[in-house]
């Protein structure tokens, strides 16, 4: 599905990614974890073509993404911070994205599910963080693409919406889609993900299932397993 070879990225003097090799197979939920500044978002943005790598190759569905934009029809992306043009109304934004990307009817269902109907005619600049995140989720899930990338999807969501998000992720997974998630909420990751990729200082430190990680670190639970990687490496 996604194959990354020898990926390097530097921002000024700051080496963010230092030789990442990663293969993501079709189907299932993969969580990308790592401490702040470990390069999670840079990795995701490289897949999306928003960050141009210094070295290395990325291919999505067997095609090299360099100088191409059409492959993004295969990707639904949820950005980390929902920064929308503040003078647009929610309805206009949804309409605009549909206009740019293609027709869909999924949006009505999602708007209903996240209880966004009263906000449709409000300007995006006046919405609360959580409501913006819900709009963000609608925009991401309204298209039926085989690869879904979610950067911190739980930010600002209330418990009901969180349950809905988890259901949504499961439904999409059952359709055979590949879902890439980054999150700092360990319980959320443990609950939803099939496999985790742990980034540390721009390299992949661990790739495998959660039980494998627990055995490797000799820790009884997931949160402590992650913590032990971090303390052992930064001690």
């Amino acid at each position, binding site marked *: 599905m996604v194959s990354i070879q020898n990926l390097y990225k530097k*921002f000024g003097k700051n080496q963010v990614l230092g030789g990442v090799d990663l293969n993501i197979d079709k189907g299932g939920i993969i969580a990308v974890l790592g401490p702040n500044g470990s390069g999670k978002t840079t990795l995701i*943005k490289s897949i*999306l*073509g*928003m*960050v*141009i790598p210094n070295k290395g190759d990325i291919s999505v569905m067997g095609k090299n993404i360099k100088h191409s*934009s*059409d*492959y*993004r*029809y295969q*990707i639904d*992306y949820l*950005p980390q911070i929902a*920064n*929308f*043009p*503040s*003078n647009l109304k929610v309805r206009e934004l949804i309409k*605009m*994205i549909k*206009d*740019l*990307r293609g027709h869909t009817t999924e949006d009505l269902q999602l708007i209903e599910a996240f209880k966004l109907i009263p906000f449709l005619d409000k300007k995006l600049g006046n919405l609360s963080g959580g409501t913006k995140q819900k709009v963000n989720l609608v925009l991401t899930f309204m298209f039926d693409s085989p690869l879904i990338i979610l950067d911190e999807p739980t930010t600002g969501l209330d418990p009901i919406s969180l349950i809905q998000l988890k259901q949504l992720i499961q439904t999409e997974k059952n359709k055979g889609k590949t879902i890439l998630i980054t999150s700092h909420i360990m319980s959320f990751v443990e609950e939803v993900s099939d496999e985790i990729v742990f980034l540390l200082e721009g390299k992949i430190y661990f790739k495998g299932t959660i039980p494998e990680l627990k055995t490797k670190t000799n820790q009884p639970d997931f949160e402590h397993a992650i913590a032990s990687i971090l303390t052992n490496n930064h001690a």
Partner: protein
Amino acid sequence: MLKILKYSFFDLMRSRWSYVYFAFYLLLGIVLLFLNNDLSKAVITLMNVIIVLVPLIGTIFGVMYYYNSKEFTELLLAQPLRRSSIFLGQYLGVALSLSMSLILGLGLPFVFYGLFKSNAIWDFSLLLITGTFLTLIFTALAFNIALSNENKIKGFGYAILLWLFLAIIYDGIFLMTLILFEDYPLDKLSLVGTMLNPIDLSRTLILLKLDISALLGYTGAVFKQFFGTSFGIIVSLITLVVWVILPVLRILSKSKRKDF
């Protein structure tokens, strides 16, 4: 690209500043006509205003729009759109809405005054064409500055400096050079000097068309002597086109290599 252009254009059309800009030109046109009562004199006054003001507004609006629509741009970048169409669309959206404010704002009062029955119609059209070129050029330069500077304050600073340099300082330096080297033949130098500054070029172009030798100045006179009036107009128009194309090409190449 057309879709992006459409959204940027309507986004700007809804903003208060487009109306302020439009209203300013409307007022300027009306006042000039009533105070002057002479169409060709009004055109000359307008030229002096346009040549300084249009570049200023173009640079400021260009830089401001780029920084303000950062979120919109990031949203678009994750969509299946080419970078060239995103940035070209936004650039044209800004440049065309500014040009429209200019053309409508100045055009309406002149049309009601009886422009179509007057001889000044070609002078006036050339004025609007030059104004549109200046908008296209300076908005493109502003986008270049904004693309190269992540820091808003720096970007604004450079934009203002660029305008100040081309609108005022350049002429000063140019004049000083002419005085310093007056013993040498300066025809070619002053010709090149005029071509290198779109503001000077526009002024020369309009004055050539108006055929007012007294206002042409040294460079204008050289220009006229070298190219002749009609060929001079063609040469300066072509140079203005080059002035649009070069910065636009840099927008395209710069945006291709940028990280977001």
